[in-house]
């Protein structure tokens, strides 16, 4: 294990603690939807920095393009034209990995070290360890990871862990023309978000607020929403995201219970054999057929 510029909080499918003595400051990316003009600079900067290129697609009757996240598009803008009591509002949300404090993808991942969470909060995929099962997709409450058709590995936003590791902001945050995306320590981002909420309230958005869902332990990508009471208006941002009960069951209790059950069967069999001995043909019957021997 070479570089450990970011210390490790969790590693997928790893039963022993990861090196986690050092604590780097917790970071966060704040997306202020009220400042976002939907220019897609973040989409471009993301592809450019990560050296991916999506296909040149088609227009589907909307401005969204690429229309969904892909293994090459780790972030996309989602445009929603919503009529509210203020008239028409064009709510444009940058979608991508939320970097949950309690990541469903990591929980679901069976490949050791394919998904790691650093102590700064970034949830990173290590494709060299990824086996391509797609369990992270099943586990993610925000429907973010995408499986590549080319290499059958799963890709998503890394929060530019390579840039953050050397003390830079993520490419999307750097490029954002209007400052709708900002980056810093999570404490600073929450403070900044609070200021933004105050500004929005002063402009008549009574329900403005911060989206930092606690169902996943809070996130390291947080939103400022004009209508925090109705996140679903923002192209179906989940109201109370969490690792669902099914995933909890599947990747939580089920694992040790089942392993114990299997072990119990083994032990039971062993005990049974030792105590009862083999089930052989009885002496009587053997005698009956002795002549046949």
């Amino acid at each position: 294990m070479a570089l450990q510029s970011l210390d490790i909080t969790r590693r997928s499918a790893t039963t022993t603690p990861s090196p986690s003595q050092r604590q780097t400051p917790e970071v966060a990316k704040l997306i202020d939807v009220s400042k976002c003009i939907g220019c897609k600079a973040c989409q471009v900067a993301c592809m450019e920095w990560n050296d991916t290129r999506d296909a040149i697609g088609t227009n589907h009757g909307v401005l969204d393009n690429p229309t969904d996240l892909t293994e090459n598009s780790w972030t996309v803008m989602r445009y929603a034209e919503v009529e509210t009591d203020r008239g028409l509002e064009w709510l444009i949300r940058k979608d991508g990995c939320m970097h949950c404090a309690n990541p469903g993808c990591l929980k679901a991942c069976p490949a050791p070290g394919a998904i790691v969470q650093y102590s700064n909060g970034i949830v990173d995929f290590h494709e060299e360890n990824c086996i391509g099962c797609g369990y992270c997709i099943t586990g993610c409450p925000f429907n973010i990871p995408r499986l590549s058709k080319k290499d059958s590995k799963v890709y998503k936003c890394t929060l530019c862990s390579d840039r953050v590791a050397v003390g830079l902001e993520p490419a999307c945050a750097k490029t954002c023309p209007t400052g709708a995306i900002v980056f810093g320590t999570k404490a600073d981002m929450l403070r900044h978000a609070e200021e933004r909420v105050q500004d929005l309230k002063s402009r008549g958005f009574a329900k403005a607020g911060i989206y930092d869902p606690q169902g996943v332990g809070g996130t390291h990508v947080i939103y400022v929403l004009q209508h925090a009471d109705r996140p679903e208006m923002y192209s179906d941002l989940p109201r109370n995201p969490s690792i669902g009960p099914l995933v909890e069951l599947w990747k939580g209790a089920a694992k040790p219970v089942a392993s114990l059950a299997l072990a119990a069967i083994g032990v039971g069999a062993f005990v049974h054999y030792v105590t009862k001995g083999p089930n052989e043909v009885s002496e009587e019957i053997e005698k009956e057929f002795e002549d046949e021997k």
Partner: protein
Amino acid sequence: MTNHWVDIKNANVIIVMGGNAAEAHPCGFKWVTEAKAHNHATFIVVDPRFTRSASVADLYAPLRTGTDIAFLGGVVNYLLSNDKIQHEYVKAYSNAPFIVAEGYRFDDGLFSGYDEAARTYDKSTWAYETGPDGYAKVDETLQHPRCVLQLLKQHYSRYTPEVVSNICGTPRDTFLKVCEIIATTSAPDRTLTFMYALGWTQHSVGSQMIRTAAMVQLLLGNVGMAGGGVNALRGHSNIQGLTDLGLLSDLLPGYLTLPREKETDYQGYIAKRALKPLRPGQMSYWQNYAKFHVSLMKSWFGDAATKENNWCFDWLPKLDKVYDVLQVFELMHQGKLNGYFCQGFNPLAAIPNKAKLSGAMAKLKYLVVIDPLATETSCFWENHGEYNNVDPAKIPTEVIRLPSTCFAEENGSLTNSGRWLQWHYQGAPPPGDAKPDADIIAGIFLKLRELYRKEGGAFPDPILNLAWNYRIPHSPAPEELAMEYNGKALADLADPKEPTKVMVMKGQQLDGFAQLRDDGSTACGCWLYSGAWTEKGNMMARRDNSDPSGLGNTINWAFAWPANRRVLYNRASCDPSGKPWDPKRKLIGWDGAKWSGADVPDFKPDSAPGDGMGPFIMQPEGVGRLFALDKMAEGPFPEHYEPFETPIDTNPLHPKVISNPAARVFKGDIEAFGKSKDYPYAATTYRLTEHFHFWTKHTSLSSIMQPEQFVEISVELAREKGIKAGDRVKVWSSRGFIKAVAVVTKRIKPLKVNGKTVHHVGIPIHWGFKGIAKIGYLANILTPFVGDANTQTPEFKSFLVNIEKA
């Protein structure tokens, strides 16, 4: 821009109208969000479409395309009738008190002096009344019936909120809300900034739209103020630079003008331009015209330019008319042009009415295209099916295509819309054999010169004598050229205050245009850029971004023309006594001995407030013009004229004069304009934030972001026409058709105009028959061949189409 990008953060109210800064200038637009976040600014968008700018606006007002003068005229009326003007500023810094000559009239849509046959005005009555001393007369009480303020009130009294709403389709309440917010900035410590771009320029009345905004700003006292001004955001990276350098048919560098063919006398040419003050004590800076002109000619023709030959005045071509692109393509269409050069310009896509352009180009004998990319223009002779249906065999044009470098492969400077000249550096060699533009021009010019030297020919003098003293003649270095346009002393220059002292030694770079002489002892390729490369070195490459005033002026970053000044007319940010109107935003002030502050004063630095010099030093009267005199082609006050293709068939203000009576339009084209019965929908073309004109369709990342051509229509129109989002539709005008995907949106709403429902069809322009994005139709297939009366900029923003499911 009168101000600059960062200065927008100082505004209290920001209006984006006739532009869409969030999409076309996103990184400059950050200063809008900054003003909102940190200056608690109110942000208003007025546009036919709910744009991405509108998505972050506090207030959005819809209006019908092409009706901005009606809207802003209504604002002028509101400000005057509700007494929401900054009185002291208007009285001292505008021509409101000036008395207009008696013959001036405005009746039923026409100003005095109209010549219907020539479609032009005799502008002699659009003038001030002058006294025997030659100065213009003023009435300080502003009560004279012919003083500008009274005429202004009279002219715009027709623009009531009801009339505005009827013409523009803007709901009356929304319009009044906009007016109220604008009116708050008549307070001396509040400013409004207007941000506009091609949404204003690309109309047959584009210049007048901008003028109306400028008038609003003068009335509110917002010109010259930090966070104020009228800000042209402009299109290309160096469109400001090429305008400053005069690469237009009638200009010379630095807004010097080419002589007309009647101006054969050099002295007369200078005298007409070196304007004498119209009021006592005024600077009238153009009085220095001869210094700029002679220095230019010395720069171009060197020793060949002498006092005796009037500095080669005869060598300059004389204009019989303005050869703007519309005029040139009209001539080409008539077969009167043989050769054409397109250097980094894709006219087949960028000028209206593609069919006409394509036919015109096929009549050329030769076409030379200098470009980094394979443009449609260079391939106009290629058949691309429905997208470019021509027969190469029938096109006799010789085409020579020369690859040029792009930004990353050369050193040089670009001038942004904030007038900053910024130097950039080469990062990699060009691909293949591509060459910088300067080398290509040098290559062509030197060959031509060689031919003239060998063979002789028609009037070879200017070609043979053009100063070409570059170290490597076929590859002039950008640094040499920059030093040349900055200017240098050709002889020792004495200090005018102490004639015995040498201020600049022979051969040295000049410090600025104040050192220019009209006796041939200085050379300067563009007086406005003087100061860009002085003896201290390349001022455009300066990188000190410190901002001690906090106003964002960063005066040690790069170089801003003129004279490194960041906010134009900044003398007007102070009251007549020299104190800033708003002490919190002090640009400059009179310190008792001179003007000083956070910016370079746009003023005579030692002229005390008591001297009475006006802040608009380029104007002979020293004040801003509410009344434009003879400077505009279609009238001294802006008047609402309908687009040449109007969806309402009339002008509600004056049905007899519907469209701009002085616009650039040719006979054959007038007859081909569409009428609303055949083409019922108002169409407008525009850019998207994902793309840049016709370049980025050659770029993979940009093509990924918006791959395929589309048009935008309202939910209501879609329902009427049975069109669903994602359907392919056909859109056609009287000039041709395009097919594209329909984007059905709530962001375009039908408007009630003059008792009629007007639907808009939005047409983004970025696709064509070359590129790696999905092949599409050039949008100018649809647009009309008509232009503004002053700039001749085509009316891309307002025309008529029909639409149906393809």
